[in-house]
């Protein structure tokens, strides 16, 4: 049990995908303008990430390995992710049309969110089992969501701040992400890799 907890702490804090491993920066910068949007994106990403990391594991273990097709892993993972995203998009569109509008291009972009593919590949590299993959994907998603939501709230404040003109908008956003990354370095060593 404690092993799963460690995986969670590791992926959420210590090896946070966004601020420590610098994966998934595109949606991180793109969808953090408003808190509501960020929350919607977080939910969608969490869903996709968790599911796709599990599915990738299943596909890899029970389909690719038996047929000795490990070299197909990247293309199949992309396929899995694309389907997951498409599925999520349909669900979101039905459940919350406004969120669908608001997420706009970013929803399909989860497909190209490198964190998603990254999680699937890292699972293989780390030889994670089924449950471990599940926790790893979920933890990565929660870490992504946590940072995204906090960042969105912070950006709402920065947007109303008296930022010098050259730094307005994405520039100060990047600076903030950098400083945040600095703060996350404090977690180094919390969990041995």
């Amino acid at each position, binding site marked *: 049990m404690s092993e799963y907890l460690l995986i969670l702490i590791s992926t959420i804090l210590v090896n946070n995908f966004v601020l420590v491993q610098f994966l998934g920066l595109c949606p991180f910068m793109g969808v953090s303008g408003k808190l509501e949007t960020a929350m919607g994106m977080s939910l969608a990403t969490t869903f996709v990430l968790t599911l796709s990391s599990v599915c990738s594991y299943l596909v890899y273990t029970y389909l690719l390995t038996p047929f000795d097709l490990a070299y197909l892993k990247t293309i199949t993972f992309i396929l899995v992710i694309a389907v997951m995203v498409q599925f999520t998009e349909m669900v979101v569109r039905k459940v919350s049309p406004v969120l669908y509008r608001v997420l706009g291009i970013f929803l399909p972009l989860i497909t190209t969110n490198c964190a998603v593919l990254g999680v699937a590949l890292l699972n293989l590299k780390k030889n994670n089992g089924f449950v471990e993959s599940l926790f790893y994907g979920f933890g990565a998603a929660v870490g992504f969501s946590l940072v995204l939501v906090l960042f969105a709230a912070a950006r709402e*404040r920065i*947007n*109303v701040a*008296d930022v010098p003109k050259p730094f307005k908008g994405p520039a100060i956003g990047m600076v903030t992400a950098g400083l945040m990354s600095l703060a996350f370095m404090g977690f180094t060593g919390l969990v041995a890799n």
Partner: protein
Amino acid sequence: MNRGLRDFHGGIHPPENKDLSTQVAIETAPIPDKLVLPLQQHVGQQSKALVSEGDYVLKGQLIAAAEGYVSTALHAPTSGVIASIQNASIPHPSGLSGSCIIIESDRKDEWGKRLQPLDYEKVDVSELLKRIREAGIAGLGGAGFPTSVKLNPSAENTIVTLIINAAECEPYITADDMLMRERSEQVIKGIQIIAHMLKPVGCLPVECLIGIEDNKPEAAETLEQTVKQLHLEHEISVVRIPTKYPSGGEKQLIQILTGKEVPNGGIPADVGIVCQNLGTAVAVYKAVALGEPLISRITTLTGRALEHPKNLEVLIGTPIRSLLNHCGLQQIKLNRLIIGGPMMGVTINDLDTPIIKSTNCVLASTSEELPNPTPQQACIRCGMCAEACPASLLPQQLYWYSKTKDFDKALNHNLLDCIECGACTYVCPSHIPLVQYYRFAKGEIRAQEHDHTKSEHAKQRFEARQHRLAEEAAQKEAKRRERSKAAKLRQQKATIPPHNSESESNSEDKAAVIQAALERVKSKKDKTSKLTPEVSNGSAAREEE
């Protein structure tokens, strides 16, 4: 009487400066040459003038009637001639004018026909309500809500408590204080009438609480003695509350005295409470027991730009200039002229602005006592404002949202629950005019709401019109088809030479009419252009376009 008092969140203790104006007894102000009576002295619809220029009116005569339920009547405060009905300065922060009846007094101060005094215990409550409405009473505390409306709560709410607001928590103001000291009997009798009116038939009498800040011990004692003399100890209790601004806010006073909170968006009657100002009680007494309409009130004239600050009994409509002169205004020292107290009052620029029914104080201040605002520094979210806010809001957050016009967030942080008491601005170390930000945001929100309802309305009208046009077109089409069918039939029957269709001749007629009219206007314009060149210039410019 010892009651379990509650406290409200926040609050401040600004310097009181009340003893400036309590040194001398209430005086009667001299009758001015000219009285200015705004038609809008209350919350609700503007009153409707009943007199016209040149009419002679007697003191107490009705000169403007209530228009609608939430409105009040207006009476001539003295005898004289109606000089005009025109736009004049009103006590409003914008400095905009409003329509006013102007009376030139004849200095005779001659009473007209008075209303019949009523014995409140013998007549029906509806009779009393009618009398209060006829007497033109609107809250004398500051907001000016028509009293007859407030004393007629809906049947769903059983009133159990009557609160008389005598807290007078604003610095400088002492009008209620002096009223209690000098006319306590009128006060108590007025309260009796109001309590009687609120008591539903067959129910227990309402509990009656007079809330007084403990910085007015004399007034409280006088009231207590009067209560004793009239043997009303069981019905009316005088409650001393700790001095803290804004304990006189209606919601705050209710919280202190009863521990209840007026629900968001509701009124005190929702929790079984009616709250009345002390001055209003006196006005009710005068209207019912003496038959006098509301034509005068006690107003504090104070501030260090006056040599003799004091309380005056003034006629409604008296221009402030004459009162200031009466109290020895030192023109050079005067820096700010405030109607109301230093925390919530409005500044005015025109000394001819009149006293209205809700004017409890005129504060003529020097630049030393109320210094000019200093430059605003950055908000550091220190939270002192949140500690001072009596409504438990987060003024620092509201400031950011108002400043950046993020009205959704401001509403989400309950901007509309702000009572604009000014406690946050008072404590702000960065000297940010917080309340002005909130007033701006509230104004914008209200304007947007107004725009929105208007656009909804416009949409409906547009759609109705589209619908009508479509129907008309359909009808025309149907008629045309019928006609063509008929024509075909006729053609089949006999070959008649075709002639101009009706519509064509019609349009030709129309064009001719327009042409004729155009010429007529042109000739007219040529005439007028000599008189008013700018009008013709305007249209000429348009023609060139």
